[in-house]
Structures are given as C-alpha cells and as structure tokens.
C-alpha cells in the first residue's frame, strides 16, 4: 500500500459549496450543479434501496418451487416494480445525474452547466415522476413487467396508467439532462480545452446525452399510446381492430435498447477516469476509446431488433439486426482492450476504486460476450425470455454499471465531501459484493441453459437447487451494499480530511479545493495540456500545474 500524502498537508476547504449558504430553502432552489449532484446522489440511492428491496422479495419467493411468501399476483407486481424502479429511478438517472452534474463543469473549467434552471427542474421532475409511480405502486401497481407488452398491458385489470405516467415524466427529466450536457460540452469548454483534450469521462457522457435526447421521446410516445389504448380502446395495438402487438415491441425496444447504452456508457465514462488515475498513466488509445463511445451511441440505435427474434419478426429483419448487433459489441471490445492496455507500464495503486474497476472489467467482458452470443440468432431462440437473458443483463447492469457507480462514489468521495472513506472496510465490502454477485448470477446463467423461463412464480423441481444458490448470493450482495452505505455515511463526519488531491490524480476536476468552492474556479482556467499526463510528476515536476488567467 503506497504512503498517502501526510495528513498535515490536507486542509478541509471552508467555506465550500456545502456551507456557502445555509438552510433547506437554499437547497430547494439551488442552481449550483454540485448541490444538484448531491441531491441526485441521495434520491437515486433511495431508489436503489427500494429496487433492491423488491429484488430480495423476488429471490425469497423463488426459494421454493411452489408459493413461498407471496401469491402469484403480488409476485408479478414485485418483478414489475423491481424493473421499473431500478431502471427509471436508479440506472438511467444515477451516474449522469450525480457525477455528470457534479464533475462536468469542473472538468470543462466552467462555472456551471449551460441551463442551471432546467437542471433544477430535472430534480423536481424526478421527484414528481417517482411520486406518481410510487402512488401507482401503493394502489396495486402494474403486473405487466417493466416492458408493458401489449395486449396484456392494455387488458390487465391492474393499475398501469400511473406507472406509465411516472415513467413518462422521468423520461422528460432524462431528455432535459441530456440537452443540458450536450450544450454545456459544446459551448462552455474553457479556452485551450480542445475536443482532443477532453477527459474521456466527458466523451462518454456526451454519447449518453445524445442517446437520452434522441431515444427517450419514442418511449414517451409509446407509453402514452399504451395508456390511451388501455383507457379508451383506440385499438392501435389491439389485434382485434387491425393493430399489431409487435409494433409496440418495435417502438418500445427502439428506446429500450439505446436505453441499456444510456446505462452502460456512463459506467464506461467513470472507468476511463478511474483506470487512468489509479494506474497513473495516460489512456492507451485515447482516440479509439473516445470515438467508440460515439460509435456505441449511434450504432446502438440500429440494433433493437435482437429483442424480437422470437416475437414473430421476419427472418430478413433478424439478419439485419443480428449483423448490426455484432458491430455495437465490437466497440465495447475495443474499449476493454484499451483499458487493459492502459495498465501496461503503469503505477497501479490497488485501492477500492481499482478493485471495482477490475470487477467491472471482468463482468463487462463476460456479460458482453454473452450478449454477443445472444445476438447469434439461433442461440437466442433457446435463451430468449429465460434466465440466461436475466443473467446477461444483470451481469452488465449490476456487474458493470453498479460496480462503476461504486468506483465513482469511492474515487470522487473526497472531492465531493472533503473526507476519505476507510480503505479497509472498502476492500472488505468490495470483496463481498464481487463474491455475492457471482453467487447470484452465475447460477442464473445455468438456469437459463436448463430452460427456466423468466418471470416464473413457480417452477419445476429440477430448477430448485440453482435458485437456492442464487437467493443465497443475493442476500450476500445486499449485505455488501449495506456495508458500503454504512462506512460512507460514517466517513462524512469522522472520515480523515482528504485535502485537494488525495489520489494525486491529474484529472482537471482535482485542480479545485475539496470540497470545491461555490464558484468552481477563481478566474477562467486556461488548459495547456491533456488530462492524466503523468510522465513528469516525479520530484514535484511543475509542468502539470494549470495556469489561471486573470
């Protein structure tokens, strides 16, 4: 373990953006992107806890083949709410909302995002959407699965409309965040910060915002059509009146496949920064990683059909979508190779964020390759709608996005709150989480191979042992997340003072005191070199200091 900077040098910057103005009202009407990032941190963590609760109830129910703790109707509601809450309240808003908001202006040398008032509006849209969805859940909630396939979603007797309206409003918040970030990156870059000197975090957030802006409206329209169909019966998806239920699947997946890239691209953004900071090395193939983010964003729009291979879609379309899905997988492969190659000749500090990076890398490779396997059309026929698909996307979402989320929380915790978390507990929790994750989802791959369909309340005897293993893993995973929550909250008050740059990282955001001041930079910083250049940091090289213009 390398010696961290002596405590005497670390000073807790006061007054900072947290203490600049007091009172709840100052938080409710703040336009400061850093405070909005902290608010998103609190809100999405609550969303994650709620979604996790539903997940545990599902895993408990699947402990035995027959009914265990709840009946079929409640089980159907549980997995629907697990899907809706996890995706719309955590996976999509979390990393862009927290770290995009907090770090983008710091990395670009700007005072704030382009439209601060719209930024605050997205927080209230998040609250409104989550409120309406929760109201729907309390009053019975939908039992259609988060995919709302018609005609089941339009003829079910449970209340689907509130959850659809909640998702619509959360989608609107997601669009506005996307617009905000794209305009910020285009117009508010500091002088000297050319596109090729942008941190890779900014590239990936830019790609995410492009998807958020261009894909979410189609979801909004589709959910609106389902609500209209279930209330008035216009027959747009009703096969009895000429409607085509597969059209809903086309429109839904046109959003939802790019949406899975909205979830993984911010994780790749975080990982690009973490690997450079903890290997103390510039990114191997900066251009390749930057352009592959844009590649994922654009080609990601052409591949939604691989969700419809067995849904009655024509073989001709299956061919087109199959080939295009291979190319989008290729961009992820390029990123993985470049991250691994970045470690070559580096100076790796093996602390918690880096452990999460290793977990992320392995799970993204394994999860990604199973994704490619799913895109070879004939294998998908066997795996579609089985636990293999459930395991695949949980490998990418939990193994990928949530690992990267934890890496980001640990890496930027000292910058956001000025205090260090306890390294020992962090490594213990990381180990538990990685172990629990494997124990939960590897059995599900095997269940998928055996042919256990997803969303099954009761299952034949032969699937029992693997389900017990998966439930055990799930409880271990939940325990790991709990430990992380505890020691992070504890570190807020009792954590060691971190000082401006505890990791001695050359990212632009580390040139501010921690926690940063309300107005990020005294003047307008002039950028004279690329991010993460460590070639002359030995014996206090001054080359890397950022000069502040008058």
């Amino acid at each position, binding site marked *: 373990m*390398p010696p961290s*900077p002596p405590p005497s040098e670390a000073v807790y910057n006061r007054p900072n953006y947290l203490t600049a103005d007091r009172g709840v009202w100052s938080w409710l009407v703040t336009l400061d992107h850093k405070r909005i990032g902290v608010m998103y941190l609190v809100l999405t963590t609550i969303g994650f806890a709620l979604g996790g609760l539903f997940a545990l109830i599902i895993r408990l129910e699947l402990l035995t083949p027959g009914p265990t703790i709840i009946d079929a109707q409640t089980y159907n509601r549980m997995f629907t709410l697990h899907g809706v809450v996890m995706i719309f309240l955590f996976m999509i808003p979390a990393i862009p909302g927290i770290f995009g908001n907090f770090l983008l202006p710091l990395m670009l040398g700007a005072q704030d995002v382009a439209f601060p008032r719209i930024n605050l509006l997205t927080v209230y849209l998040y609250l409104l959407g989550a409120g309406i969805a929760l109201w729907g859940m309390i009053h019975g909630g939908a039992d259609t*699965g988060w995919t709302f*396939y018609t*005609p*089941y979603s339009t003829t079910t*007797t449970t209340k689907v409309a509130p959850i659809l309206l909640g998702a619509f409003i959360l989608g609107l918040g997601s669009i506005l965040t996307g617009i905000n970030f794209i305009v910020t990156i285009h117009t508010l870059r500091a002088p000297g910060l050319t596109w090729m000197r942008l941190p890779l975090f900014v590239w990936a957030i830019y790609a995410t915002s492009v998807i958020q802006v261009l894909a979410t409206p189609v979801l909004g329209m589709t959910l609106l059509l389902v609500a209209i169909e279930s209330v008035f019966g216009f027959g747009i998806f009703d*096969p*009895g009146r000429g409607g085509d*239920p*597969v059209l809903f699947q086309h429109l839904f997946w046109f959003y939802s496949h790019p949406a899975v890239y909205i979830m993984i691209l911010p994780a790749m953004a975080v990982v690009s920064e973490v690997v450079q900071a903890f*290997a*103390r*090395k510039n990114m*191997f*193939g900066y251009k*390749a990683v930057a352009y592959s983010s844009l590649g994922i964003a654009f080609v990601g729009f052409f591949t939604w059909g691989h969700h419809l291979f*067995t*849904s*009655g879609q024509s073989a001709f379309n*299956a061919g087109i979508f*199959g080939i295009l899905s*291979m190319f989008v*997988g*290729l961009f992820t*492969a390029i990123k993985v190779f470049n991250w*691994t*190659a970045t*470690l*070559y000749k580096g*100076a790796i*500090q093996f602390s918690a964020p880096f452990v999460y990076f*290793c977990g992320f890398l*392995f799970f993204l*490779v*394994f999860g990604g390759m199973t994704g*490619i*396997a799913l*895109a*070879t*059309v*004939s*294998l998908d*026929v*066997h795996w579609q*709608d089985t636990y293999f698909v459930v395991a695949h996307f949980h490998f990418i979402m939990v193994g990928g996005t949530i690992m990267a989320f934890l890496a980001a929380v640990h890496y930027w915790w000292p910058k956001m709150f000025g205090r260090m978390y306890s390294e020992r507990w962090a490594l213990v929790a990381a180990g538990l989480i990685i172990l629990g994750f494997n124990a939960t989802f590897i059995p599900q791959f*095997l*269940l998928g*191979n055996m*042919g256990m*369909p*997803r*969303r*099954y*309340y009761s299952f*034949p005897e032969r699937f029992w042992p693997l389900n017990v293993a998966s439930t055990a893993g799930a409880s271990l995973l939940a325990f790991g997340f709990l430990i992380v929550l505890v020691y992070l909250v504890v570190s807020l008050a009792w954590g060691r003072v971190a000082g401006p740059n505890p990791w*001695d990282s050359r990212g632009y955001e580390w040139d501010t005191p921690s926690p940063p001041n309300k107005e990020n930079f005294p003047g307008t910083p002039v950028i004279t070199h690329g991010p993460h250049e*460590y*070639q002359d*940091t030995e014996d206090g090289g001054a080359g890397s200091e950022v000069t502040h213009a008058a």
Partner: protein
Amino acid sequence: MNELMRTLLFLPEQGTDYARSVDHLHYFVISATMLGSAAVFVTVIAFVIVYRRRRARQSTPVVEPKPIHEAVFIGLPLVLFLVWFGIGFPQFVALQTPPKDAMDVYVQGKKWMWKFAYPGGPSAVDTLRVPAGRPVRLLMTSRDVIHSFYVPAFRLKQDVLPGRYTQTWFQAKEPGRHQIFCAEFCGVGHSAMLGEVVVMEPSEFDAWVANQRRVVAAAQDSAPVPSEDVDVRTSLVDQGRKLASEYGCFKCHTVDGTLHIGPTWLDLYGRREKLKDGKWVVADEGYLTRSMMDPRAEVVAGFQDVMPTFQGRIPAPEVAAIVEFIKSLRTSTVRPEPSKGPVYAPIPPAK
C-alpha cells in the same frame, strides 16, 4: 465431447438434430467467451503485480498505441463475431422455414393452457402427441394475450400472437416426453401454463390418430342432435362440467371446497356472498351468469379481480349448462373421487 459439454453447461437433452447443431455453436461461443475473459483477467492480474506503484508520486511513460494494436483490437473480435453470426443465422432461417411435407398441428395458446388440434383429427389440452422422425409444423395463434411456445429440449421457441398465426417446426429424433413452457409473461397463471410433447413411434402415433378419429366419428353417429362439437354425454350437468374444463374454469375455481384463485364452486349455489364493496348477494343463476359476463362488477371479498370476461365467448346454452353444473355441486351429492374435470382422456389404442 458433446455429452460432456452438454452436462457441463446444464443443457437439457437434444431432442432434434437442430438442437444438436445449435449446441455445437453454443460450445464454440461459450469456450471463446471463457477464453476471452480468462485472457483479460490474467493480463490484468499480471499488470497489477508487475506494474504496482512503488513510489508515491511515481511518473509513468506516455504509451501511444501503434496502428497494429488498434487493428488487432478491432479485427480479432469483429472476425470472431461475424463467424458466429455466419453459423447462427442460417440455423435460424432453417428453423423459420418448415419443409413442405411437414404434418400440420394447430396450436392455440389461451390464458394459462395450450390446446392442440390436428386437421380433421382429435384435439387435446396440454399434451401434444407427435410421431418421431417426421417433421411437424405448428401453426400457432392465441385467444387473448401474447404467449410463447417453448420446448427447451428442442431449443425451440416462438411467440404466439393473438389474432395472428405464427409458425415453427421440428423433427423429433426418438420417442420421449419433453416439457412445454410458456416463455412470454401472460398473467397470474404464466408459470402454470405447462404442457408436454409426447413423441411416439410413427406406427404407434398413426394408430392413435386413427383410433381417436374413430371415437369422434362413433360419438357423432350416436349423438341424437347433430351439433358441431360432439357431446359424448347428454346430461346438462356433465355437459356443464366438460365445458367448464374446456373454458379453463378449473384453473381458478375448485369444485371440492379448497381455496384457490377464485371462489370454490362447492355449495356456491344459493349461498349469501359478501362482496368486496361490503354488499351481500345471493349466488343464484342471475349472479352466476352476471359474474361470468362482467366478473369485475361483483367481486367476492377476499379475492382479486383477475377473472377475464367471457362476454361473447360462451353461447347461452353453454352458460346454462355450466350454471347447472355449479348447482349440482352440493356436499350431499358430490362424488368422492377427485373432481378434476375430465380432460380428453384418450382411449388406449387396441393392441
């Protein structure tokens, strides 16, 4: 090698040649995945150990990729992925185009049961009998929502769309029994919508079909009033029991008093029922008929309103038969044997 990999990956047995070829692609893909992730993992572990940080502010050289690196990083995975697609897609096209001489079977998915009908032959619920070695084409449709006909042993899955027909085919290798699942979420009974593919010797199958047809023909001759669907027994109560099983009422309502998704029918007729909104109602013919046509209007307290409406699906005489059957279910007159409605129990073929 095939058996080893198949058991290693927990794959079900291979009922068709198509399943076998798909599994071979599966082994190729999974071993490449294992190799790829192991390679990345070992490289990372090696780099972490070799290039660990030695000094606090250690500087590192700037390493820029040479074009060859990018070419390999892009070329290798692309070729591998396209090869997989090249193998997988023709298999899928073969699955989607049944041979001309295939035997047709009409499949009908309905909320929480599978119904199979042979053109001009017998029909059965939840058991599909097919001859071994002969291609069988399934022409499938659904009565209500999207279901998905899934036989893991044949690596076969095809969604069943309401108001539309979808098709798929298979050719079972040798006799055996394989489970059918519904793979597209379709409500409360989604996990109970199981069926079975019974693969029989071709000769045995032909005998069975001929036998079934003879029974149906005989019943048609003896039936006094020729009606389009033959009622083997004539009394209204038995007809009601058969119709109740056909419309899937027994999936939610029991006849022996045990609690299930819907209220039990034992001693239901004439009982005073407390409704969800607190009102009391006597379960007479009117209430029984109304609750069949618009179930959500008067839901009995303590039960969810998940019953689908049968409005326009059951003709009046059949409604009357079902109500008669419910009226006959009184403790004093109920026969002791388990009253699971008789599904088309096939008559054993004459040896």
